[in-house]
């Protein structure tokens, strides 16, 4: 499975997306004094994005290849 170079590229892409999501300027977009369902927007954003990244990694490495 980890011979699959496609997965390597996907993981590299996830890394780049993560770098983008967790840094200026995307971070600044959510740096506002508002809240979503009682949770501060920035806080909610980071945790959701974080979970998204983890989910993507899991999806890539755990998915059974035919």
């Amino acid at each position, binding site marked *: *499975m*980890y*011979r699959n*170079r496609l*997965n*390597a590229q996907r*993981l*590299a892409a*996830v*890394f780049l997306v*993560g*770098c983008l999501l*967790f*840094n*200026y300027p995307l*971070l*600044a977009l959510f*740096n*506002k*004094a508002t*809240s979503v*369902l*009682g*949770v*501060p927007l*920035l*806080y909610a954003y*980071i*945790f959701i994005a*974080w*979970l998204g*990244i*983890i*989910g993507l*990694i*899991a999806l890539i*490495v*755990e998915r059974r290849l035919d």
Partner: protein
Amino acid sequence: MLSGWTVILVSFAYLGILFAIAWWADRRADQHRSLIDNSTIYALSLAVYCTTWTFYGSVGRAAATGIGFLPIYLGPTLMMALGWFIIAKIIRVAKANRITSIADFVASRYGKSHLLGGLVTVIAVVGVIPYIALQLKAVSNSFTILAAAPEIVMPVHVGAVPLLHDSALYVAMIMAAFTILFGTRHLDATERHEGMVAAIAFESVVKLLSFVAVGLFVAYGLFDGIGDIFAKAAEVPQLDRLMTSRDTAAGYGSWAALTFLSMLSVLLLPRQFQIAVVENVNVAHLKRAAWLFPLYLFCINLFVLPIALGGLLYFGPNSGVDADTFVLTLPMAHHNNALALLAYIGGLSAATGMVIVETIALSTMICNDLIMPLLLRRGWFGLHERSDLSGLLLEIRRWAIVVILMLGYAYFRLAGEAYALVSIGLISFAAVAQFAPVLIGGLYWKGATRSGALAGLMAGFSVWLYTLLLPSFAKSGWLPADFMSAGLFGIELLRPQQLFGLTGLDEISHCLLWSLLANCGAFGFFSLLRAPDAREVRQASLFVDVSGWEQAGPLPGRLMTSGGTTLQVTELLAVTGRFLGQAKAQEAFERYARSRGLPLEQLTADADTVNFVERELAGAIGSASARVMVASVVDEEPLGLDEVMNILDEASQVRAYSRELEQKSQELTRATAELREANAQLRELDRLKDDFISTVTHELRTPLTSIRAFSEMLQDDPRMDLADRTRFLSIIVSETERLTRLINQILDLAKLESGRADWTTVEVDLGQVIHEACESLSQLYKEKGVALTLEMAEPLPQVMADRDRLMQVMINLLSNAVKFVPQTVGQVKVGAGATASDVRVAVVDNGPGIRTEDRETIFEKFRQGGDVLTDKPQGTGLGLPISRQIIEYFGGRLWLEAPVAGGGAHFVFTLPLPTSDNAIKRKAGGAHDKENTDRGR
């Protein structure tokens, strides 16, 4: 209710459970039913990353900066995504080379350098000590607070506590003892500790559960859910600002810097390297860890901000309760002693996990890369002592563990109070980040050299010392304060945390910027100063060429063909036995011998064996020391040219390959050009031959035409009158003669040109030949009334030549002359004379001469001088070419002199004198051989 003794008892009980788990796992390992050969356990053990910093410190950080605690966990998440490129490769390299620590890794990569291994060890120890101090501080604080329950009392300033009353000292000592029990019970060649890993994985579960329990308690016990906490906090202006980040460039900059720093740390911290790389059972485990470990980090951080805000709301912003202790003090304040105890155990888990792995990793490094090389250099282990040294190795490690923890305690006493937990940890992060260029660079860049790595590490470490460690002492009052404000020697530009006037960055980003700049700069600069030497090239290819994705193939071993002896194997076995124990060594050697299909007695110390022993020993004493030990036995010669050729690094292979390609293509181009030229020559030769044959047939057909015509006429007309008949018959006869002559000469020329002519080279009296030639033609001259005069400087010297051939040349020249001179007034003069080096013969006539432009063409075949004449000349057009061939065969020249006004043709030939020219003899000899072979046919 919670007395100090209860807490102590629970603590030891917990440690006892850990120990039981470790013992169980070790036993399973001995039974080859490894407990930790499991990707979930691997992922959980990676969570040793979360220490008391996470458990207590994150809340403190969150209470001060809001989400500022998060980059430390986002970085590792990103690293795990990228880890497939880097971590997997490191694991494969480490497994293939029996790497036991990060110091070993770096030392091995750069030619198994002792110096480099030692430097990495020093940096790691110095860099990580603040981090260990952090754990001691956290555990001792949590113990003090918990023991004082139900009162919530912050620990007094550490400086105010007498040494022997300081709980941190006892914590340090207990941890040292516990670590020694854990990590140094026996020596393993692979430096793996299955029991420890299992215990660490268990600890990760404990700390997560207890933290989440506290989080749920705060969110739903103290408040009405997370939303309630945020809503209440939003009403307090001081807390509202924690909901957003500092919206400044410096704020985002430091955010990014911390993310980057933690990315490196999750791999480069000695304990992370130990768990992720050294203790890894199977690279495939990385697959699950890539998402499970980040998920763990996610879960343990979910409640950090709620707890921080909850604490701040509960105690009030200026209550004096340290936010670093909220995890413990919130349950205590609510008199939930069980939860407080659980929280304490969670904190203890975080601390012990970190301390155990970190000190074991450091003690291995200190032993293998610092102490052993020193001992080896001093020659403290004589090779002929047969004592078992594995005990000594364990002893060194045990003392190293004690020393590390005592140093940690010392740092805690000296500087621990000046910082919050997280800030202390970041100092260590910045220190180990210095390994990044040499380690990651060394994994992908073959040009990196030992001197580059040394320079880079020293530069980065120095800057770190100056901009981060020394200021931590200064802030604690152990260094003069004006060191910070005025700079070293009062030079403003050298202020440690505004180096060269750089302001606006937090101290971590500031240090990271300058130290990595210096590090990478020096690393690159010194690496590029010189090409890697043979050993570095070899190691570089071992490290760089391992693919992180493919299964590691057979190791590119050294292709040393020289044998080595079986006696050396006995010695190698003895040496290995002294470090691993005799039984283990014997077993390993036998296994190895079996793998090569040889009985142990027949094993010789060849390159493979040496590699094997080096790897075995590397597990116990580090690769650099192993190399020295093995070299002392087999007296390994420095890498020879052959070996160097065999281990050419990829770059030079590629270079060589492309050079080869280029060369090949050049050769091809050249060959094509040559072929084309040869082809053109062939075609020209073919054309010439075609022309020649065409000319020959023409020359043959011409007399044939006459012969046939006259014969047919004679045949058709039997009554032809006698006069005609006689005339025609004589024409037929002469044409037949002409035909015969022509055929003879063509054959002669063919022989000459193919070198198959028969030569009889003897000493020839040239004067006599000339006389005879004149004699034989005198009748013809008389008939035509041409005068033949002879002017010779007699006696002419002897020449080496074929007498008959020379005669042929003379007759050809004389008969040509008589053919062209006018009858009755014609004159032909023959002159001959000798110089120091040759004999010169001239034949001059007073005929019409030959045009200047024809002077060379007359020597071509069938190119008769006749073109200028109206009368068809007699002859074949082959006489002169044949003559020239003959003369040139004997090393002479035949040419036509430039015509003088009114003069006729003037032919000259020379022949070299034999005494002055060996070439003739050679040629003569060659001709004889030819003759013999011809005869043989």
